[in-house]
């Protein structure tokens, strides 16, 4: 073979090697997703070989570390739901209406100043929010309630929920802003030309058009709230056996119990520790589902308005 052909072969070989290296790098993210799924699944299965799966989902006694330990997580799910509900009750209206103001009413100058400020809210580490919740918000709620003659726990669901809501506002407002801005201007013009006010146009024409995107943003917000750990570990309660609809009482969440199970004094393979993985599995499945639905909704919205970037 000529020198040239040899050189060509070695270049081709080098190219192939590098290409396969790149593919392996890309494979790592796939590996990680499946790694998380399988490592959690594996340990969770270990757990469910020792404790009942149905009782886990529906039972209401959670008592690790005892001789006849029971692992019924329904109170934990209830607490998670309550705190997430409070968070969304705050983040959704504030987030959507902030987005409405920024995309429909605000001048360019206001918009370009405010948008980065909201991004700051998104960038604050959650441990910092947790500190704020535990040291400032919770005592504040307690003292306000005291003056009203109502009793509130220092670990109230309200404190954790409110601060979590603040944290989620940018998630909802940012995506809602994008979808509302993407609604074609021709629709607005058509409505205004019929003699509608700007508010009527937004309420009856723009928002319904943007609805799939807003729902998607809400689902993302819910997903983030469910998976949030630091705020609840620092501000919410630990009682995994408590059912309550009173937001002033303490409640616990799935993430708090995961941390509790793994930072306790139990051996690794005991059901007490493995319960963390069972809870982790539930969290994984729920957040993944919310995410997939959210992405599908956005895709549908993008197709409808043929947007290229969102």
């Amino acid at each position: 073979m000529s020198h040239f052909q040899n050189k060509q072969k070695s270049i081709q070989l080098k190219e192939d090697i590098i290409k396969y290296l790149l593919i392996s790098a890309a494979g790592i993210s796939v590996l990680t997703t499946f790694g998380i799924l399988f490592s959690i699944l594996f340990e969770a299965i270990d757990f469910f070989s020792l404790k009942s799966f149905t009782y886990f989902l529906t039972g209401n006694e959670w008592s690790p570390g005892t001789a006849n330990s029971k692992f019924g997580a329904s109170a934990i799910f209830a607490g998670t739901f309550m705190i997430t509900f409070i968070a969304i009750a705050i983040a959704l209206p504030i987030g959507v209406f902030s987005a409405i103001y920024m995309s429909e009413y605000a001048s360019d100058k206001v918009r370009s100043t405010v948008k980065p400020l909201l991004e700051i809210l998104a960038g604050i580490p959650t441990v910092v929010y947790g500190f704020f919740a535990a040291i400032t918000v919770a005592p504040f709620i307690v003292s306000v309630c005291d003056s009203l003659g109502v009793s509130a726990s220092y670990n109230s669901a309200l404190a954790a929920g409110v601060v979590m809501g603040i944290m989620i506002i940018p998630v909802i407002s940012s995506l809602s802003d994008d979808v509302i801005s993407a609604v074609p201007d021709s629709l607005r013009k058509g409505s205004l030309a019929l003699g509608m006010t700007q508010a009527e146009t937004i309420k009856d024409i723009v928002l319904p058009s943007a609805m799939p995107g807003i729902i998607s943003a809400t689902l993302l917000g819910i997903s983030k709230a469910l998976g949030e750990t630091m705020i609840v570990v620092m501000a919410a309660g630990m009682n995994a056996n408590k059912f309550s609809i009173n937001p002033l009482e303490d409640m616990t969440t799935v993430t708090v119990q995961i941390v509790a199970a793994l930072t306790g004094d139990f051996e690794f393979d005991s059901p007490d520790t493995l319960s963390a993985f069972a809870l982790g599995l539930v969290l994984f499945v729920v957040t993944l589902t919310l995410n997939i639905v959210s992405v599908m909704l956005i895709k549908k919205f993008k197709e409808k308005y043929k947007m290229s970037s969102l």
Partner: protein
Amino acid sequence: MKKNDVKIDVKKLNLWYGSKQALQDLNIEIYENQITALIGPSGCGKSTFLRCLNRMNDLVSSAKIEGEVVIDSKNIYDKDVDEVSVRKRIGMVFQQPNPFPKSIYENVAYAPLKHGLVSKGKECDALVEKSLRSAGIWEEVKDILTQPGTSLSGGQQQRLCIARTIAVKPDVILMDEPTSALDPISTEKIEALMLELKKDYTIVTVTHNMQQAARIADMTAFFHLGDLVEYDETETIFLNPTKQKTEDYITGRFG
């Protein structure tokens, strides 16, 4: 041709976008129950002028307007006139059909209900049917009123937009190149519709298509670089224009 009453009397209209002047000292009288066509090369201000007639330029923050647009003895730019009310009396159909993402029925019923013209139920149903008939689309959609307005073809969507415009019972219908996005058959249908509609409404239409103006317009106004160059009966404009510029445009020397 017998001259009808003056419906819209425009006096000394000037418009600036920021520091750039887009309309210069316009004076024009638009006659009732006629089709007035606005023609001219791109960027000559005809669409801008059209938008002055229903105060849609108010939505552009950099727009400054001087002069008067008097309709039925009232200047619509007076301080005591609400632009929302102006747009109820002076409707607009756009170049790209823009039906709302609602059902066909709701597209037509939305504004009249909001304005309080009809109450929900039979009264509203009657208005929707009447409007869709007047727009020449009733037979095609009467069985699919609950389907979304966006599921119709381009020409049908435009007729739907015309239907919802007349549902609020305006006096004037402004049309901004209503057929330039449509195929020839839909265009024909809409031109026929416009000739029908002029019996009940005053129509002002911007068109890029001179043949269209020649076909349907009673009066034609030729705009050039923000000036109203010539305004006369259509026949005169096309066969016997007074100004050289008009003749140059008509004969295609520029465009």
